[in-house]
């Protein structure tokens, strides 16, 4: 721990980064256009890398540096690049359709944040890490991205919601336990990567069959 970082200052910086992360999640929830949605996702990845790096720097956990680097490489560079290429190849640049309008979604979001906070309060008190205060925010971001997936009616925004949830889980890991063991981190990263590749393959197949990426076409398998 370098000399000029007092415990109070680190706590405030971590809370600041967590707050920025929460703000970015709300922004993604309210975003209308896909391209800026992907940029917001990249920004979220970047803030996540910053917070992990800062925690690594503050607590001296060496393996956190590695996971910060991994996050940066995967969630800031590789995934957004893949998504941009997919959007260009599928030329689906039109804006995001939502099932319920944005203001009500935001209202729901607020309710979820309140719920997440008082739910995580007893748990974070027992956490041993300095970043235990941010566990409430981590749970809030998980629920927000879950809400985002529910309210989106296009395939790509739904996938981005899914990736945002992975981000929030990664952040929760660092908040609660200074990150999972390295082998698990690698496994999760590998799963996310393979997952995105497979979803890309699906985008092409759905485009080919339904010549649109609207999920409302995917409603024939049901019971009468």
């Amino acid at each position: 721990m370098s000399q000029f970082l007092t415990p109070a200052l680190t706590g405030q910086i971590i809370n600041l980064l967590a707050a920025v992360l929460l703000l970015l999640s709300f922004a993604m929830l309210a975003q209308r256009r896909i391209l800026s949605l992907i940029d917001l996702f990249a920004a979220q990845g970047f803030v996540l890398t910053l917070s992990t790096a800062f925690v690594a720097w503050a607590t001296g956990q060496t393996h956190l540096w590695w996971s910060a680097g991994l996050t940066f490489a995967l969630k800031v560079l590789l995934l957004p690049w893949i998504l941009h290429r997919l959007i260009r190849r599928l030329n689906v640049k039109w804006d995001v359709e939502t099932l319920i309008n944005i203001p009500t979604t935001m209202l729901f979001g607020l309710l979820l944040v309140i719920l997440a906070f008082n739910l995580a309060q007893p748990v974070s008190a027992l956490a041993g890490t300095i970043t235990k205060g941010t566990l409430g925010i981590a749970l809030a971001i998980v629920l927000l991205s879950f809400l985002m997936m529910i309210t989106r009616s296009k395939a790509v925004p739904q996938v981005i919601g899914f990736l945002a949830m992975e981000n929030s889980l990664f952040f929760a890991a660092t908040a609660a336990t200074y990150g999972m063991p390295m082998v698990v981190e690698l496994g999760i990263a590998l799963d996310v990567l393979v997952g995105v590749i497979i979803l890309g393959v699906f985008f092409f197949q759905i485009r080919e069959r339904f010549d649109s990426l609207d999920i409302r076409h995917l409603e024939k398998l049901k019971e009468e």
Partner: protein
Amino acid sequence: MSWEILAVLGIPLAGGVLLALFGHRRAAAELNVALSLATFVAAAALTARVVRDGPLFAFGEQFFVDSLNVFLVALTAFVSMTTSMFSRPYMRIEQEHGKLTEARLRLYHSMYQLFIFTMLLVLLTNNLGLLWVALEAATLTTVLLVSLYRTPASLEAAWKYFILCGVGIAQALFGTILLFMASQKLLGTGVEALLWTHLLGVRSQLEPTILSIAFVFLLVGYGTKVGLVPLHNWLPDAHAEGPTPVSAVLSGLLLNVALYALVRCKVLADGALGTDFAGQLMMGFGLLSVVVGAFFLARQRDIKRMFAYSSVEHMGLVTFAFGMGGPIASFAGLLHMTVHSLTKSAIFFTVGHAAQTAGTQMMDDIRGLARVSPTIGWGLMLGTLAILGLPPFGVFASEFLILTSAMRQQPWATPLLLISLGVAFAAVFRKVQPMVFGDTTAKPLPHRPALIPVFVHLALALMLGLYIPPYLAAWYREAAKLIG
């Protein structure tokens, strides 16, 4: 380090890679069978070793084998072997019907082996984080198999399967993180904090509030993979739209593996919470699954979809059994898991060939199987009677144990269970009987269907119904003690 574990995990992994390269050749199916056979031999050797000299560690406690997961490993290896035997003629007929190309067959064979690898990894790993990764990998490998036919319906099923299971599994990751957080205070921040055996040792000192929230997340996460009712929506689509060997393996094995993971977490939660909170939750979900699953069966028109709902119902029954706890209920749950996978996979084998014979999966258009080819017809009839819990078969034995221990521990739940079993019987048998009996103009299949697996499975189920060998009974009883 024991070579068995290395072999059990290595062969399917290597097989997956090998088939990725040569999957498109004629001999790919035979290679697939050979690899599964090798895996089964290794699993059998591992089982013998564990039975002989007790639980076994490997790779510095990263892998752990006790009596609970070794019988699941043996069951998984055996059923995947028989499914690969069944898939050889099935896939050749599908290819001749023009539904599959060479490339897709290659994808199928490699993904099949990788899928077996991920399931065996889930069963053998001691690290709960790695268990999560393997289960997520299992979902990934089967998503492509479900959409193998590229029909709109299979695409829709695959998409829902991926999104719903992805979200579900994500909840489980959050649960694992909380578990890791709770265990860090006692076992330090290293990887030991995630090893199940260590957690088992300190489970009574774990923090109850964290464990209860962690178990909720884990229950919702792994419950989605088991197909418990409010979270079951992906299951009928995924099991009905994929090729039949995939449905057989999904219904028969993947649900068991997910439930195994849930049971591992329940053991920890029980230790930490002291109360029966986890058991009651599982009982609630189990009962809901049995009742709702049974009523789903009545209006089905697609045969694979109907048997998928039957899987939802049976998994609900097993979850209910494990939720009740106690030696007899856990013993019954394990027995029901075994017999359900054997019978359900046998049914899917016959259903596959029946659908090919009639050219459709709609039950109203499949008639007179017993006349076209007696083996398929009688196989389906006996399999259906077995899965519906009619005596001489093993499913009745485990249902009898579950119901009788339910009458002793939870008398209020018994009428609900019995009514739903009755409704399920009425619904399924009304549809299957005209399919097997009656007259038809369909022609027999071009290739002789490999139905030895069906009758081997049914014979095993019949044996388990009438006479459970003493060493198998001791083995189950020991595993039941583990579950507590």
